[in-house]
């Protein structure tokens, strides 16, 4: 019986070795190319055979007995001694209060001093950068490749992502979503009456919930049959109504999508009529008190 088990273990170990060699071969042979599967199989196999060998060894070949041991008990004498020692040392100080306060003060000040340089990690106190966007009156809307977007190109059946011409596309204030809506159905506040020439609207593409890009139009909240267009965020499905100034109609977002006023240039291209209606992106404490700058 024992001999049998020994044979099994030896065989398993041989298999493990063979797989390990196979791994090296797979690695070395150029012709096999990207052979992640073979390599994984070989290396994993080698380890698996080794594991099996170990388990059979433990199960069949190692004689083991049950043993017992006492759970450790707390050593009260030692606790006592430590108490004594500390108390004894403490007793020699006469003005403990004073020294304690002074030490606390030194510790706290030094601690504060040591973490002060961490303030250079970012603009800690200045929150103005959060409101900045590259949009200015007259700045043209361009696509990813920098080609200006023409008003007559905006098809009502889809939506477009546009960026401010000449600015960094990756800034949180850059990307906007552009769509053409039925002008008769637009319900924008009165002061935004001129923001949507020919019914073309633009909103920040950054979700006001948690900064994902709102990249869904109508779906999945609105079956394609439902006539009302909606802008949807794929992260937590906040849904915004582009006809009603970006109002939240479903989901966790707390603010409407900031709207970008549009105008059409003499050449028929879309350009910003100013900055956004409010700060873009997720909320922070001051977000409702600030304007986009």
């Amino acid at each position, binding site marked *: 019986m024992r001999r049998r088990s020994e044979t099994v273990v030896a065989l398993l170990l041989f298999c493990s070795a063979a797989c390990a060699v196979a791994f090296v071969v797979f*690695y070395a042979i150029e012709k096999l190319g990207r052979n992640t599967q073979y390599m994984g199989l070989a290396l994993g196999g080698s380890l698996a055979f080794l594991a099996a060998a170990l388990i059979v060894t433990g199960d069949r070949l190692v004689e083991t007995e049950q043993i017992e041991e006492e759970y450790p008990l707390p050593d009260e004498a030692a606790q006592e001694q430590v108490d004594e020692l500390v108390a004894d040392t403490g007793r020699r100080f006469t003005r403990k209060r004073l020294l304690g306060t002074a030490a606390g003060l030194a510790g706290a000040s030094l601690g504060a001093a040591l973490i002060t340089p961490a303030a250079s990690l970012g603009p800690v106190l200045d929150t103005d950068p959060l409101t900045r966007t590259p949009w200015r009156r007259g700045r043209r809307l361009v696509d990813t490749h920098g080609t200006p977007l023409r008003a007559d190109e905006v098809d009502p059946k889809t939506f477009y992502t546009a960026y401010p011409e000449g600015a960094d596309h990756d800034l949180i204030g850059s990307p906007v979503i552009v769509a053409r809506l039925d002008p008769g159905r637009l319900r924008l506040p009165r002061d935004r009456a001129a923001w949507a020439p020919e019914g073309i609207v633009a909103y920040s593409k950054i979700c006001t919930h948690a900064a994902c890009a709102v990249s869904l139009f109508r779906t999945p909240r609105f079956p394609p049959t439902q006539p009302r267009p909606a802008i949807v965020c794929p992260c937590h*499905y906040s849904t915004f109504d582009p006809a009603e100034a970006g109002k939240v109609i479903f989901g*966790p977002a707390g603010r409407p999508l900031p709207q970008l006023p549009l105008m059409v240039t003499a050449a028929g291209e879309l350009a910003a009529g100013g900055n956004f209606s409010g700060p873009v992106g997720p909320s922070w404490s001051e977000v409702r008190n600030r304007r986009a700058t």
Partner: protein
Amino acid sequence: MLRRAVRTLDERTGSAPFLHKALRYVFPDHWSFLLGEVALYAFIVLVATGVYLTLYFEPSLGKTVYHGTYGPLRGMQMSEAYKSVVDISYDVKAGLLIRQTHHWAADVFVAAIVLHLLRIFFTGAFRKPRDLTYLIGLMMLGLSLPEGYAGYSMVDDLLSGMGLAIGYSVALSIPVVGANVGQLIWGAPYPGAHSFESRLYIAHVFIFPILIGTLLAVHLALVASRHHTQFRRRKADGQRRVIGVPAFPGQAPKSLGLMVGTAALLFLLGGLVQINPIWLWGPYETGLSTNGAQPDWYLGWLIGAMRLVPGFDVTIGRYTLVPNPLWGGLLFPTLVFAVIGLWPFAERRLTRDRRVHNVLDRPRDAPWRTALGAGFLTFVLLVFFAGSADRAYVSYNVDYSTQIWIYRALLITAPVAVTWLTRRICLGLQRSDEIDEEREAAEREARQAAQAPA
């Protein structure tokens, strides 16, 4: 040979007594005691594969154009970081194997910790004198979440970018100081300064691993110093003496086998089962996102929480006190960890049981703990599953908003129902135990009575 080695070592380090003690360390035998070990072994694989990956990964957001092997991305602009991971996947030999193994190991690591935690909780192994060990374990779980998040975020593919955007918003949502905290961590408004990538990187490969490793060492030292707990045995004073197989030779081959077996599983997964194919997601830009994106499983509960919270910011006039992402992204996980972390102390208060416990409870032995634990687990699991409601929408066509309302309703009712039911089951099991005992006692008596005349 061996004897020489032991002698040489002992003469110089005096380690023989310690070694002997270590070899005779007692392991009580139960399969569920091995879950923590699996986490440990996954951690070892993580460190090993992780070191390998750092040799190729480039933590830089500098822009470059891809000219590598993978056709669809050729000519595209991307960050150095993303490009280096595509290169690891396509042009470094065995690179994809190591990368996928690393990713799988992370998922298994957290899963093993969670299962281990459940085992510890439902058997009452967290009680004095092991409450400190428990808290340290919980801290490791808490650290492993941002560790994993930083890991997949620094790749700068589309999914990692979406994850970071959410993380940034959660930072911003901290009351009063959120904007300051967010800018401090990111270095600038989202997507942040270029140095943000280095910060993620050093957090992922140094700060968090060192913290986890240190806590791991303390955790293991504490386990060893207080000894393992054990289940109740007949005819043995389990409270005073621990019974089991010695580390050597009894436990050693089993544990080694488990270690090698865990590694085998991870490499097989890494080789055969694709995970996070970042070349398909493409590089991240602030203006891009994709539908149906899912984070790694261990962050799924946060997505779920953020989806279930109704849409409102708490405002005072024009001052925004609590932006919405705070609830799901920060308060919910904090609450969950707080409940788990404070439980041992709450239980001690409520049961007035301040004794030392070396013998485990079976779940039925502590009906209230088991019931409340099951209820709480139901709550967290429901939130977790809500995180995949959009998948259910796509796969089964159940309206998304309907699902959200169903989940909200279940969150209120199901935990209560589960708590009640679990308690009933525990009491039922206790009762049937009693009946069994009575029957056995009666049988014993009958046998004795039968033998007596003879």
